[in-house]
């Protein structure tokens, strides 16, 4: 097939561009049927997601959902992703059509970005989202007048309800419109500077020289990405402009003047409801003292519900695995194969799957917080605390994501504008207890205290221990990452209006998490369980006694080798091997202890009974502290290396956190042994 034909068949590329939290991902899902993560706060999307859609005429299109940005002059890494796609640089092909999404209730804030897209001479359509919110606030936008003034097709929609999505698909007819004419002008010298630089860039062979010239004059940060020859050309053109406003400032000023004109013509404001309810709720929830108490209470309720509400579904899962084990034991002849099925597979996988209800409860609560708009408030409240360690409240959102999983949390740090603050956030993020630690906590906490309230309190304490330590270490590392002693982080964030939770999205998200968890249990954890069973079963002890088997097995020998290292923590060979095995996945700790004790039932109470028989409370405490602090997740280390662009940072973090966890567990064991 000829290359020309392949190109002809390639689907035209569309890109969604707009401010954070304007509804791009909701629209992306509505257009493509995808399930991209959405939330009622800015910074949910930090990378490019692509999907396909078909117009009513059957034209296939490729749609990219880009991270939100306030301007194409990027300040954070996620904004730079959007900039690069629109410029068609750094390996990203430029889109054939840009779908600019704006909030109809805040048009004056959102239009400057649209005009920047027009200045880049990119073909575009303008999507006017949240028209219902605008109307409720007394803002009506005349789409026809707006279209005439901006020079783009304008489609009013309500992405969350799917209203207007078909009209938008109709507007995406192929071939796409040409780029809109620019109806505003900066000073002649600035326009000339862009033309001049564009020609020089063209001579240097840069792709899309006119767009790169435009941005190089507007964004000093972008200039640093250019080659030294290109930087010299920019310097030359800037030098030639004789004082006054820089071309970038001049363009910005002209753009804003035009935005004011457009808004005066196309927007009509009349008396509407002011967001009185949001104001009233915020007055209480953002109170400097009471707000922090509410935040603590919300998280305590989360942990309480995990213990309280998960009991019945957990018993059900236990019964299912117990029945499966009994059935396998009765249906299969006695022997190694049956042991593998019952102890290795059903016991190993069941020991982890039993915690699925509690993990889903954690995600349910986090989903509700994300969907209602509370996440941005949590960041606001934590800003005061975080500024003392050199971070802004903005870093709290990735840290909160870390409670679910460190990997999306590390990626979410792209929305932190300061590179040094971002690095510091990445360094401490794995101390936010992720959901993989949850099964270990849930297994061990009932060994310490009885009663739902007390257990929830201990769980809250473990999460707080990780979080507070992270902040203390951030304070200590502040200078190491290059933040000045008197560094004052800036906090700038939109507080979205409160919304009722989007139950459809939350249900879908829970289903995805449950599927991912079960797939992991059915693949990684299953495979590791089989390996661990084999290591605990072979070679067979000559005596044939079950009590001698572990010591004689390969796992027992590995445990004996590691025992001198873990013995000071109060651990024996079994716990040592369980700790080593959980470097593959933390949940494997539960499978490993179940297998190494050859507990017949998948009932976690049986495992706890073995624990009570074998260990004292200081050992349990030492284990818990180790799991709070240890970074036992190689995928996280790989993502940290990628996001920080440094293996040194990633390996240093892994080593540092492992040593810290060991020392903390050692201190916990010996101190608690003194007092308990």
């Amino acid at each position, binding site marked *: 097939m000829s290359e020309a034909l392949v190109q002809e068949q390639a689907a035209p590329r569309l890109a969604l561009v707009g401010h954070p939290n304007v509804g791009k991902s909701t629209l992306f899902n509505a257009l493509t049927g995808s399930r991209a993560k959405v939330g009622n706060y800015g910074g949910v999307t930090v990378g490019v997601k692509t999907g396909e859609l078909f117009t009513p005429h059957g034209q296939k299109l490729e749609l990219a959902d880009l991270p939100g940005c*306030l301007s194409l002059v990027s300040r954070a890494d996620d904004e730079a992703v959007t900039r690069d796609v629109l410029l068609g640089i750094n390996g990203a092909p430029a889109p054939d059509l840009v779908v600019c999404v704006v909030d109809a209730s*805040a048009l004056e*804030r959102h239009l400057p970005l649209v005009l920047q897209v027009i200045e880049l001479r990119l073909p575009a359509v303008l999507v006017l989202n949240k028209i219902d919110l605008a109307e409720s606030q007394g803002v009506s936008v005349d789409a026809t007048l707006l279209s005439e003034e901006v020079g783009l097709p304008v489609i009013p929609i309500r992405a969350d309800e799917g209203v207007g999505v078909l009209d938008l698909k109709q507007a995406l007819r192929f071939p796409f419109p040409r780029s809109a004419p620019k109806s505003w002008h900066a000073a002649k010298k600035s326009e000339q500077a862009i033309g001049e630089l564009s020609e020089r860039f063209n001579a240097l062979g840069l792709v899309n020289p006119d767009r790169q010239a435009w941005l190089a004059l507007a964004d000093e940060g972008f200039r640093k990405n250019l080659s030294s020859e290109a930087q010299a050309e920019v310097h030359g053109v800037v030098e030639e402009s004789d004082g006054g406003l820089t071309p970038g400032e001049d363009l910005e000023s002209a753009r804003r003047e035009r935005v004011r004109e457009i808004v005066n013509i196309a927007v009509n404001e009349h008396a509407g409801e002011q967001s009185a309810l949001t104001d009233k709720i915020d007055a209480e929830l953002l109170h400097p003292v009471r707000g922090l108490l509410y935040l603590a209470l919300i998280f305590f309720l989360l942990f309480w519900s995990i213990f309280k509400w998960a009991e019945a579904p957990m018993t059900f899962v236990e019964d299912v695995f117990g029945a499966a084990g009994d059935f396998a034991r009765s249906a299969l002849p006695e022997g190694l194969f049956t042991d593998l099925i019952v102890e290795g597979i059903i016991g190993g996988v069941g020991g982890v799957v039993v915690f699925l209800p509690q993990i889903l409860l954690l995600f349910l609560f986090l989903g509700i917080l994300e969907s209602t708009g509370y996440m941005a408030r949590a960041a606001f409240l934590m*800003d005061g605390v975080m500024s003392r360690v050199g971070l802004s409240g903005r870093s709290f959102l990735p840290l909160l994501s870390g409670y679910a999983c460190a990997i999306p949390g590390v990626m979410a740090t792209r929305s932190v504008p300061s590179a040094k603050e971002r690095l510091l956030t990445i360094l401490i993020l794995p101390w936010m207890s992720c959901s993989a630690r949850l099964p270990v906590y849930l297994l061990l906490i009932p060994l310490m205290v009885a009663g739902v309230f007390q257990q929830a309190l201990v769980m809250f304490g473990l999460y707080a221990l990780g979080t507070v330590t992270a902040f203390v270490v951030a304070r200590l590392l502040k200078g190491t990452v290059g933040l000045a002693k008197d560094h*004052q982080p800036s906090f700038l964030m939109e507080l979205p209006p409160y919304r009722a939770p989007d139950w459809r999205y939350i249900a879908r998200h829970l289903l995805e998490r449950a599927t991912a968890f079960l797939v992991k249990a059915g693949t990684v954890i299953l495979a590791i369980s089989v390996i661990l069973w084999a290591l605990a079963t072979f070679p067979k002890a000559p005596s044939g006694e079950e009590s001698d088997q572990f010591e004689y097995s390969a796992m027992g020998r590995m445990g004996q080798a590691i025992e001198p290292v873990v013995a000071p923590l109060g651990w024996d060979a079994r716990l040592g091997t369980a700790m080593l095995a959980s470097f593959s996945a933390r949940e494997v700790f539960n499978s490993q202890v179940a297998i190494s004790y050859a507990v017949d039932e998948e009932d976690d109470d049986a495992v706890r009974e073995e624990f009570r028989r074998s260990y004292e409370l200081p050992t349990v405490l030492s284990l818990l502290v180790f799991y709070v602090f240890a970074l036992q997740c190689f995928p996280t280390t790989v993502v940290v290396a990628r996001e920080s662009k440094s293996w040194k940072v990633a390996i240093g973090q892994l080593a540092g956190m492992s040593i810290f966890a060991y020392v903390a567990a050692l201190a916990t064991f010996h101190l608690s042994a003194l007092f308990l």
Partner: protein
Amino acid sequence: MALTPSKLFVDSTVSLTKAAAGCDLQVESVGGPDCSQLRDLGFCEQMRVRKIANGRNLICTVCGSRLAISSHLADHIQVKQLS
């Protein structure tokens, strides 16, 4: 007619940090190293702003959106009181 303190306030500009909460304001000028970012967020000249709450971080509504902003950044925004 003698000028009352409130009359003086209406005619002069103050930083957004010092403006009283609950007032409708108009941005007169934006300065400082983060001025572009502030403008991108909506704090640009002639924009109407309502200050909702004071504190370490201020809360304002700009164009119907509720924004939180550090007080040290708000120091660079000069505003005029409208009501």
